């Protein structure tokens, strides 16, 4: 198979976000070299300025309705891709904002921290556009490399090194699974492009099925769905907290972009064969994550397990395998972005001053900082899915999409899990509000952190109370999945 790759000026415009971010990355790296001993906060602010410009570029592209397929269909720039790019950029901005002041205090800190964060973000931007198996594989690895270093950033800390090693070994193993799966699918269909696979895989052959399963398992590792979640708790606990937050959001979003295209564009016609698999994955992740979260005493581990359960929730929409399901996924990711990142921001703010990540360190937080307590309440309740917060609407949307496809068993398991999760979130809420603080000195919050926390809280409320514009946004982004089975065969 050969194709002549021609790059036109219009193609370059479509690649503008990635090109811009690459330039920004090089700029930050150079600046870091020029002034090795300077104030690194400047790098953070500069990165965020650049990312803000990038967000504007993405918005402009979405408004002008860019829809291009580059390099022989390997790379698409459509609304779905733009949505996920914006998602990644937004989460990167927030991560950089909460890192300021926290990571500088780490013993191993160097200016390249921000470069590595941007580097991972670049990988994820590319991932959002992947429309063939090879691009998917390369971008997936690309985005993970940055994380290998970032997770093990505190070299002197054994927990951090362990976290990095765990992520690396399992990540490499996953990569081999995916590569094997790709080779099988290529062998069966003779193509790597998603739309082409859909056209050529009319009958399900064993090779195709095994290849599909291997890739699904590999992506399952990336999103941390049970039973592929092994690396999540230790990695989340050991990594520097901003990186944990980053890891819990951005790669998940990008991986769902790939999963959506992989499942709906390439294998949408065979969905009768794989829906039950996703139903199972989803049930397992929700139940396992929530049950184990109950027993945690470290807040980062608690959020790690709750994160596994949240991924299970998002998989409900994937199991629905419909336009509504993908709308629900996009919307839920938005709610998850603000709620989860907000919760991590509070954790960073607290551990910056108390130095601890135990749930018991949150005792009496309400007396030490009413603002942190109130926002943590909002974030945790949103994660639990309590109205009028974002998570409630998101979960309802997911369950409605599954109910429309007749997956009532999944809806029942999901609803039971809402109650289970309420328990452990409420235990944290109890520590914050009911218990008396051990040390009652008031906590002060750096201004950037405050902006992120309050901004997230506002969005969590806004998404819950007035979600109309966001619904419009996500339904526009998933237009390509209208009538999944038909769209790919046109």
């Amino acid at each position, binding site marked *: 198979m050969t194709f002549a790759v021609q790059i036109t000026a219009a193609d370059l415009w479509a690649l503008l976000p990635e090109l811009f971010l690459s330039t920004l990355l090089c700029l930050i790296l150079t600046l870091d070299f020029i002034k090795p001993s300077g104030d690194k906060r400047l790098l953070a602010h500069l990165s965020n300025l650049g990312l803000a410009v990038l967000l504007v570029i993405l918005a402009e592209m979405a408004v002008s309705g860019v829809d291009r397929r580059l390099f022989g269909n390997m790379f698409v720039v459509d609304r779905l891709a733009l949505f996920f790019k914006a998602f990644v950029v937004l989460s990167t901005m927030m991560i950089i904002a909460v890192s300021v002041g926290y990571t500088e205090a780490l013993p191993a800190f160097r200016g390249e921290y921000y470069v590595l964060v941007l580097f991972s973000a670049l990988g994820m931007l590319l991932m959002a556009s992947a429309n063939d198996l090879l691009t998917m594989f390369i971008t997936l690895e690309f985005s993970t490399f940055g994380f290998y270093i970032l997770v093990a950033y505190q070299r002197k800390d054994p927990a951090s090194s362990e976290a990095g090693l765990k992520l690396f070994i399992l990540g490499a193993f996953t990569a081999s699974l995916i590569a094997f799966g790709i080779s099988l699918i290529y062998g069966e269909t003779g193509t790597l492009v998603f739309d082409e696979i859909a056209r050529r895989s009319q009958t399900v052959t064993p090779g195709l099925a095994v290849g599909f399963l291997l890739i699904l398992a590999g992506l399952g590792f990336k999103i941390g769905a049970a039973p592929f979640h092994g690396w999540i708790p230790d990695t989340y606990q050991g990594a520097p907290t901003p990186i944990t937050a980053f890891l819990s959001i951005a790669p998940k979003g990008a991986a769902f972009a790939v999963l959506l295209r992989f499942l709906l564009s390439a294998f949408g016609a065979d969905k009768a064969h794989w829906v039950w698999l996703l139903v199972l994955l989803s049930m397992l992740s929700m139940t396992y994550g929530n049950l184990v979260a*109950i*027993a945690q005493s470290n807040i980062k581990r608690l959020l790690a397990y709750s994160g596994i359960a949240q991924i299970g929730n998002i998989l409900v929409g994937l199991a629905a395998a419909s336009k*509504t399901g993908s*709308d629900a996924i996009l919307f839920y990711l938005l709610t998850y972005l603000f709620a989860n990142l907000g919760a991590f921001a509070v954790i960073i703010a607290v551990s910056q001053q108390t130095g601890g990540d135990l749930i018991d360190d949150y005792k009496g937080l*309400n007396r030490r900082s009413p603002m942190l307590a*109130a926002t943590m309440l909002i974030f945790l*309740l949103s994660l639990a899915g*309590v*109205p*009028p917060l974002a998570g*409630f609407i998101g979960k*309802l*949307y997911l*369950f*409605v999409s599954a*109910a*429309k496809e*007749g997956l*009532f068993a999944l*809806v*029942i398991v999901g*609803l*039971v899990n*809402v*109650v289970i999760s*309420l*328990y452990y979130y*409420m*235990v944290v*809420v*109890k520590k914050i*509000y*009911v*218990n008396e603080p051990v040390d009652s000195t008031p906590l002060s919050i750096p201004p950037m952190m405050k902006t992120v926390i309050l901004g997230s809280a506002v969005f969590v409320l806004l998404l819950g109370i007035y*979600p*109309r514009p966001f*619904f419009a946004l996500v*339904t526009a982004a998933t237009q390509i999945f209208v009538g999944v089975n038909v769209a790919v065969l046109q």
Partner: protein
Amino acid sequence: MTSHLISLILFAPFLGAGLLFFVSNQQRTLVRAIAIISTGLSFVLSFYLLYAYNYQAGGLQFTEQYIWSKELGISFYLGVDGISVPLVLASSILVFCGVFVSWHIKDRLKEFYMFLLILASATMGVYVSLDLFFLYFFYEMSVIPMYLLLAIWGSHTKGYLEMADTAKRDSIGFLFNFAKNSKEYAAMKLTLFLSAGAVVALLGILLIYTTSGLHTFSIPELAAHSHIPGNLKTLIWLLIFFGFASIAPIWPLHSWSPVGHAAAPAAVSMLHAGVLMKLGHFSIIRVAYEILPDTTKQWLIVAAVLCVFSIIYGGLVAYFQRDTKYVIGYSSSSHMGYIFLGMAALNVISLTGAVLYMFAHALATGMLFAMAGFIYDQTHTRDIPSLGGLSRKMPFIMGAFIIALAASVGLPATVNFIGELMIVIGSWPVYPVQTIIALLGIALTMGYLMRMFRGLFFGELSPPGAHAHDASPFVDRLPLVIMMACSLYFGFFPSQFIHVISSGVEPLVAKIQGVAEVVSVPPSGNP
């Protein structure tokens, strides 16, 4: 023309809570002022609503509708019918009184009022929602403030404080220990019970949404046009009934309720017993009766059977309690059975009586909880045997207690009497056995309330009561006076109420019974 009356009633407390967020906890006067003004506004407007509601026209009035999401078919659809008007009024009366009852709270007054106002608005939100989504939205929203109110400002019961191992008291494992009664345990139990009930009901709601094929959550629209397949209807009805009945709380799903009452601060117990529990009955009427009328007729026997257990079990357990709040809590559980009986008998008189009784019970139980809370504040105990002789220390409270007791038992001149009478008259032809048991339940109520009254006020003055004071002239007396006045006023002049309620009940009963029954309410008000 759309009127904004309902949204004003609903959002006034919400706005109050929002404003409170920006006020410092030190400015106690300002905090109280905001709470009074926002709930007072709702209170006055709800009274206006009762008299502005045109019962001759009936149906849904003061409706407001805004599209909230086209993708899911949700609209923010508010409005009242004859059934919701009294409940809105009850909610606003109780929260207004609740603000005064919790006047003296020392710890974090601002947060207390914030959560109280959110709780009250969320409750009212359920009563005025005409969209299934928002009904559920507000329903679930009312649960979380309850958790915080109980866990922060609640009080432990005896066993907890005797636990020597303090480390164990705070451990997570402790919450699973069913033997002790800490406030956190009560709060968590309540939250999990109600959330579990809510998700069961939500499953039913989702089934209605997907099988009706209308792509809407609007209750009037679903009631008019939905075609749900027969065998599924039964399942949906059971899900809705048991989901919502767990908050009502029907026997055997009641166990969270007395514990919750006992742990809650007075104002929260008032709202909890007064209006929160009625969310269950109301939601069953709103969802199951309206959308699944034929299944309702077929399955109401479930309610008719279970209500007997509620009445007798609750009454007997109340009789043997030592803790004042447990007595009132079990008594509330027991009285909820009357409402189910009225709902099960399903004729205009019994259902009107049931709705009226929901209102009446809110006032009676509100008074009792307010006074139990006051006595606890003064004596620091709720143990009846260690109290006594309070008549010398607090004559006003004693007087108010007599009226509350009369209302709770349902003596003539109180609005409870009319509600009970209508339930009994309406149910007699349909379920004579249950009606007789209900009458026995009234006797039982008389028994345990009199026993508590004697234990609290008569006999030798006990040591805990030595330094007790009577209710202060304004702040402590006002809420009791308001509730007494409402109870007596509507006991003497119930006609407006009965007209309004029956204008909502008649079409519903006619729809369920298939043929329009020619049972109308006495024309000029007095039953």
